[in-house]
């Protein structure tokens, strides 16, 4: 645990240093830039609430990727599952009008259903035709992109809008806000808790983890690998789909073009940085959200384009993962050398 935190800190420090070098090379003042970045994301009531809210569509796909990867399932379909979830929630919000206490759970469930269906297609193709989910989910991402683009330009288009988008969903489906705090963060906390519980405390989660570490051992131990594969796909699809639904219900209130942004891929990166740990995914999700949120404010006062956050994120991922693996081998080497010395004496 101590080593994990140390690794993370070293990685973040090196990455920020590299980012500073990039900034200096372009003639920006790195200290000022970083100060603005964190000022607009962490320090203060409004910035912090915004960071929390923006973390929702990062953490949920992140959890999805973390659970999938740790279970040995290469589900890279989060982008597609996210937009399908958003589409399902939007369509539900357009045609249903229930009291909010019912409407919100129904829309959230619809969003999860959308993600599950899209992940389920990949799961079935793997289960019955042996098609690797890796490429299949990637292709389904592109197909979902075009499918949702079609859905908002033709059947569900808002006739009064100039660009493709749906009308607003019924107001009863809007997530309530308390001051700056949007209730979508409650869904995020719940998802983190449920994922942690299922993955670390339940029998199913145990079987998934074992399968991820050694599929043969799991099979010989009596796990139904195929069934577990399908359930992991469905659960991770539901998590990614929920992210899309929450974006619609909590911020845009309709399906607009580019709704999925880069959320899901950022989530995949977060899971990778977090080494597929549930709590680590949550924490790194907050950290990445802080960078993205702060970058928008930073642009206002330092003239550094906010897209720098995307570059910074990728550098962070590479450096943190590389330093983790490098430090691990270093620690192993040192301990091996020590053991060798002890054996000699």
């Amino acid at each position, binding site marked *: 645990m101590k080593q994990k935190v140390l690794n993370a800190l070293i990685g973040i420090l090196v990455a920020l240093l590299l980012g500073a070098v990039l900034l200096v090379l372009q003639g920006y003042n790195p200290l000022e830039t970083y100060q603005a970045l964190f000022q607009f994301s962490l320090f203060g009531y409004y910035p912090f609430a915004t960071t929390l809210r923006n973390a929702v569509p990062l953490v949920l796909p992140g959890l999805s990727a973390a659970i999938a990867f740790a279970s040995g399932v290469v589900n890279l379909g989060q982008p597609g599952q996210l937009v399908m979830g958003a589409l399902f929630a939007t369509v539900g919000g357009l045609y249903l009008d229930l009291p909010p206490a019912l409407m919100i759970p129904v829309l959230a469930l619809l969003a999860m259903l959308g993600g599950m269906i899209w992940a389920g297609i990949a799961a079935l*193709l793997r289960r019955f035709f042996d098609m690797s989910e890796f*490429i299949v989910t990637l292709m389904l991402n592109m*197909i979902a992109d075009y499918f949702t683009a079609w859905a908002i330009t033709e059947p569900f288009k808002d006739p009064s809008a100039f660009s493709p988008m749906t009308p607003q969903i019924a107001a009863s489906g809007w997530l309530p806000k308390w001051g700056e705090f949007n209730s979508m963060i409650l869904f995020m906390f719940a998802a983190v808790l449920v994922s942690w519980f299922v993955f670390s405390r339940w029998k199913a989660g145990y079987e998934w983890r074992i399968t991820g570490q050694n599929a043969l051992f799991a099979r010989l131990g009596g796990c139904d690998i195929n069934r577990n594969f399908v359930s992991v796909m469905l659960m991770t699809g539901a998590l990614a789909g929920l992210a899309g639904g929450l974006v619609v219900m909590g911020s845009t209130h309709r399906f607009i073009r580019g709704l999925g942004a880069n959320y899901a891929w950022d989530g995949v990166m977060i899971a990778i940085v977090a080494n597929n740990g549930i709590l680590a995914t949550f924490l790194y999700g907050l950290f990445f959200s802080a960078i993205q949120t702060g970058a928008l404010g930073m642009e206002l006062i330092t003239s550094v*384009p906010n897209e720098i956050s995307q*570059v910074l*994120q*990728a550098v962070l991922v590479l450096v943190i993962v590389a330093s983790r693996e*490098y430090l691990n081998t270093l620690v192993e080497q040192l301990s091996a050398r020590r053991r060798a010395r002890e054996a000699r004496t």
Partner: protein
Amino acid sequence: MKILIGLINGMISGATPILLAALGGAYTFYAGVFNIAMEGMLLTGAFFAVLGSYYTGSWLVGILLAVLGALLLALIFILFAVILKTDEFVTGIALNLFAVGATTYMLRKIFSVKGVFSNAGIQPIPSVRIPLIENIPVVGEILSGQNLMVWVAVVATFLSYFLIFHTRFGLRLRAAGYNPARLDSSGVPSSRMRALSLLASGVLCGLGGAFLSLGYVNLFAENMSAGRGWISLAAIILVNGNPLGVALISLLFGFSDGLGLLLQGYRVSAQFTAMVPYVATLIALYFYAARKRQMKSA
């Protein structure tokens, strides 16, 4: 007849970027590198091609910069995956996202635009007209007037086939993937072969990216590689990396690209026609998996 020629020409230009990227991926496939950074290399190449072509007014400089840009990505891949031994999958994913972020950032920083940069100052890669042959009906209309990069891709296909299967370099390359420990013990570091394969893939993906932004269209758009790097990965897996097979599969994907354009003429929604290449990939994967199952049961 006109439709057929249009379809064939659409197929060829749709296939070219996929073919170039897939040839690059073939080198890493044989060297045993799980290289999924083709998508990012294509995108980086496309950006630098526009950058070079716009500022110097020369498409040749554009191509050169595209190759250098993609090579830079390959060098980062080598640094992390080969030297620091970071997981190849992680490195690839991070590099793809780095490419998206960096090109979007530079688009904003250098050209001060968001989304798309198109300008009359961008010099496209010229087409090659072949005298005499261009007068032959049908065949002439296909062979003549193709973009220069199409011919580069054709040459690259045969060159790669020759390099991989008929030279000492190719033998070592395949050995690095087949049995790295043996290669190491015979005095050739397998990590060097892996690094070389990544450089080769950088060069070819750079060329493919240059075709995307200076041949296929004449502009740079955010994330314009649009999954072609992933399709090329599928192409490599489907034919186990063989360059000639890769060429055939790329033509198949190019055909679905052209078919999509053709269907648009028949009032099919543009969004559905754009899905065709991805659906085609899924269908190809189905047959691949079916064949593998048959071989296993036989």
